[in-house]
């Protein structure tokens, strides 16, 4: 295909970009690894010393770690489930030839453009607030007791907010996939006597397997690091009920000023993210592509 010359030229031309990206990635990583092996607390400057793996031991044996890990998995899992199931449904609806389809699509995509801090504030103060929130008003207007979301169902509240933000992403990816589904295949299935449900199960769903894998992978990467929504709404509480790994690391670094422990936590989070991504892609890939 390419000659030796163009290959060499290509490598030379791409080298600066690769080098820059490499430095960009390797410097923070190396620093994190370095700090994770040090006793370093911002409250005691000048008292750094080599810690070995103490920071890791400290972080991993902290009872908050297991809670945070479970919270992280619950959050990621629930949001994935909601966004994919609902996203498929929304994509199917948006794929139908309806009047004003473009405006509907724009509106569905809109939440994705709202920054997490803002959407968390809107949900907290305008929607889920137990006194002045819209949900509270709806509940009391039909004679029910308003729900104090962040006190009684803090995790569910956070999951709802994050799912609301990520639903457009899933819908959009799945919609584009639906649009690439061959018309003649659908017609062939129709001629074969497949109803709407059969067509969905035997034709649409297998076709969506790949994009669903993509959605799971990308969302997992971002959902593992959900922070702003928790920071703005519950602050990780009540207790540790909504503390995920990202928030736990934040607490170590910026509330306890323990840079060493926070770095160790950061590395643990990186490893967990990789393990999770690896298994998710495998499981989903195998089940849906068969």
């Amino acid at each position, binding site marked *: 295909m390419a000659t030796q010359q163009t290959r060499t030229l290509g490598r030379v031309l791409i080298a600066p970009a690769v080098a820059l990206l490499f430095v960009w990635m390797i410097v923070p990583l190396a620093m994190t690894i370095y700090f994770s092996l040090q006793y370093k607390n911002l409250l005691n400057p000048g008292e750094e010393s080599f810690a070995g793996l103490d920071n890791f031991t400290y972080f991993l044996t902290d009872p908050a770690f297991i809670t945070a890990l479970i919270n992280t998995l619950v959050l990621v899992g629930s949001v994935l489930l909601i966004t994919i199931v609902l996203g498929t449904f929304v994509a199917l609806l948006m794929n139908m030839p309806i009047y004003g389809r473009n405006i509907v699509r724009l509106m569905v995509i809109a939440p994705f453009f709202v920054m997490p801090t803002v959407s968390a504030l809107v949900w907290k103060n305008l929607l889920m607030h137990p006194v002045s929130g819209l949900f509270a008003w709806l509940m009391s207007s039909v004679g029910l007791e308003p729900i104090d979301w962040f006190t009684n169902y803090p995790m569910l509240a956070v999951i709802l907010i994050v799912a609301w933000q990520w639903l457009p992403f899933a819908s959009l990816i799945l919609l584009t996939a639906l649009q690439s589904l*061959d018309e*003649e*295949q659908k*017609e*062939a*299935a*129709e*001629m*074969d*006597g*497949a*109803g709407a449900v*059969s067509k969905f199960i*035997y*034709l649409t769903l*297998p*076709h969506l*397997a790949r994009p669903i894998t993509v959605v799971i992978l990308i969302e997992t990467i971002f959902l593992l690091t959900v922070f702003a929504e928790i920071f703005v709404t519950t602050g990780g509480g009540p207790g540790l009920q909504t503390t995920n790994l990202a928030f736990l690391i934040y607490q170590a670094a910026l509330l306890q000023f323990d840079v060493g422990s926070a770095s160790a936590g950061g590395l643990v989070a990186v490893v967990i993210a990789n393990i999770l991504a690896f298994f998710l892609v495998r499981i989903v890939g195998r089940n849906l*592509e068969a």
Partner: protein
Amino acid sequence: MGSITLENVRKSFGSADIIQGASLEIEDGSFVVFVGPSGCGKTTLLRLIAGLEDVTSGQIRIDGADVTDVPPAKRGLSMVFQSYALYPHMSVRGNIAFGLKMAGMPKGEIDRKVEGAASILNLTPYLERKPRDLSGGQRQRVAIGRAIVREPKAFLFDEPLSNLDAALRVQMRQEVTRLQKQLATTAVYVTHDQVEAMTMADRIVVLNAGRIEQYGSPLELYEHPANLFVAGFIGSPKMNLIGREVAGQFGAATIGVRPEHITVARDGEGWEGTVGVAEHLGSDTFIYVDVPQVGTLTARTVGELGIRVGERVRLRPDQRRIHRFDTEGRALAA
């Protein structure tokens, strides 16, 4: 059983009339080909029969029963698509079995029928493969297998051979024809290739701009084209159409002579002209001759005559095989 009747069927998309009133009687067990140039509505007409499009007005009957508003699956027809439209995630077996599975047939019976269809089509070794692992001809056969396994009242083919290479097309053409005769099931076949139409059909429907120009057996169309369009469309190379004074001598607005009905000689009677182009195919020679007052005529001669470009030749049409047309383009009785 599988006779299909169209009665004044019309189809419009918005203000565009794609089918302008088609009436047609397709007999049980016959092989009918819809042929015509691109955009003539032949595929639309097939899709109307399939039920994949709604008719604007008119009636479609299968075995006498009105199916105009019946959904595709209930019409008892099966279709082979141009792109084959195989289900990419299913094996060959799954593809062929899908229709039966949807009909709720017991598994043992499905397996028996699928294997029967596969053996007719030489697909048995490929039953567990996915469509992407098959060649074009094999995919084509899977699509046909999917159609025959349901034992439909009629097969509908939408340009099924257009994605195959020339050699395979000839082979599949014969296979499809043989299979259709063997199963004695009605077939409606859409193509833009008049050679396919002539070789496969019991009867041909020539369509042009949403109208049926002629409906008849291949030889009828060849020997007695109803109008100028059919005369020009059927036959290769195209029929020579001559107007003006020459046609007047025969009492017509236009006359048509097929290239194979013109005798080429170096002297003697006939129109005199200069050879512009000569195409030597070995078996035949196509000679394009510029004749003053008449235009460029094509003549087809069997074998080699050794005629060269620039030579002056005489063209003598077979008097009994001159087609005459009136000013409207309709054929005049011989």
